[in-house]
């Protein structure tokens, strides 16, 4: 395969990954790295570097649209970014210390977990309006547009959320993914932030988190322009199409298909590690 063919194929694959990622809200990173390593036989470190770059592109592109809607809470995001960026530095340093096998194994497990999250129905929790003293001191409680008025919400369990965010950042730095699933889990489940606010705030945090490890990746030579170019342009195009064609359609079956795909990729990734082929 020459460079022209390779670039075209990787670009096409990245368009699909970006499309799936934006339609399901899980991001393209989780499909991209397995796609590159399993099908294009790319070394996992190059794959992780290219994926991380595309994560910054989609997050920044989407955040531009979200911030205008008034859902994302910049104070919650900025405070938690202290945890995600420091976590991301740690993850990126770890990525340089451990072997490709370890990265692939952790990646396989994260794929299984993402498949579980994507496949299960979302648990709705009851809101309570008893303010948490720490969250109040940090000015995190907010409101978002719902129906005709604004709906107020209170934030809870800040330390738990902060620790989970540190983990999300470390995974992002180690695996080159946005780890939006873990971020939403921390905000939606632990901190009891309304789902719409959690997803949009997570999206704006992803780009900043990824930028924290990208500097280290660049410096260590993980970011190859020849590979990152088709991946970045492809994912960007795919997610752009995704946000245009499907805004309110039924995504339940799509999430199930996506869950099945990443489950398969996770299994294959772990199999290759065991068979010693990564």
């Amino acid at each position, binding site marked *: *395969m*020459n*460079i*022209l063919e*390779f*670039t075209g194929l990787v670009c096409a694959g990245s368009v699909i990954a970006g499309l799936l990622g934006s339609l399901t809200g899980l991001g393209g990173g989780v499909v991209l790295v397995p796609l590159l390593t399993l099908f*294009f*036989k*790319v*070394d996992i*470190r*190059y794959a992780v570097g290219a994926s991380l*770059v595309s994560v*910054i*592109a989609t*997050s*920044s*592109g989407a*955040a*531009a*649209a979200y*911030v*205008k809607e008034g859902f994302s809470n*910049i*104070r919650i995001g*900025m*405070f938690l*970014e*202290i945890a995600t*960026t*420091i976590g*991301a*530095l740690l993850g990126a340093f770890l990525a340089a210390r451990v072997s490709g096998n370890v990265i692939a194994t952790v990646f396989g497990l994260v794929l299984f977990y993402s498949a579980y999250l994507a496949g299960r129905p979302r648990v709705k929790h009851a809101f309570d309006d008893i303010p948490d003293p720490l969250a109040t001191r*940090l*000015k995190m409680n907010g409101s978002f547009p719902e129906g005709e008025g604004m709906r107020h919400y209170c934030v809870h369990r800040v330390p738990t959320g902060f620790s989970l965010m540190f983990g999300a950042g470390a995974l992002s730095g180690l695996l080159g993914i946005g780890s939006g699933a873990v971020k939403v889990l921390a905000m939606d489940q632990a901190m009891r932030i309304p789902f719409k606010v959690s997803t949009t705030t997570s999206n704006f945090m992803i*780009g*900043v988190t*990824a*930028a*924290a*490890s*990208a*500097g*280290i990746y*660049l*410096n*260590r*030579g*993980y*970011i*190859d*322009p*020849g*590979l*990152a*170019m*088709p991946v*970045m*342009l492809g994912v*960007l195009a795919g997610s752009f199409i995704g946000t245009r064609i499907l805004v309110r359609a039924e995504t339940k079956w799509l999430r199930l298909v996506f869950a099945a795909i990443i489950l398969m990729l996770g299994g294959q990734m772990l199999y290759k590690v065991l068979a010693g082929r990564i």
Partner: protein
Amino acid sequence: MRRFTRWTDQRVEDIIGNLLRAGVILSALVVFVGAMVYLARHGQKPVDYRTFRGEPSDLRHIRGIVEDAASFEGRGIIQLGLLLLIATPVARVAFSIFGFALEGDRMYAGFTLIVLMVLLFSLLGSSLS
């Protein structure tokens, strides 16, 4: 006062939204130009990403990337576009400090400053060594 604060929040967010969009579009354009140069010159060569060698040192540091791009090297131009992309969220955070300071929110200006320091450490600290 509260109403005024919210208006400022929204205003700052609007500017940030435009900043992010401009950064992504600009970097995608630069990457695209680099891609054309790169593919025109090297498109027929065989591809090999199976084994990790790491990038040559000029593509790992800001100075080397800028020099490569200035001499119209395809890979250097692409890398410059990627560098612009990485800088976009950093600029966003830097602008947020300004936004919080404008609102008189010292606590959050401080939090944001911490985030900016971490980002600059990653981007510049490792690049200068």
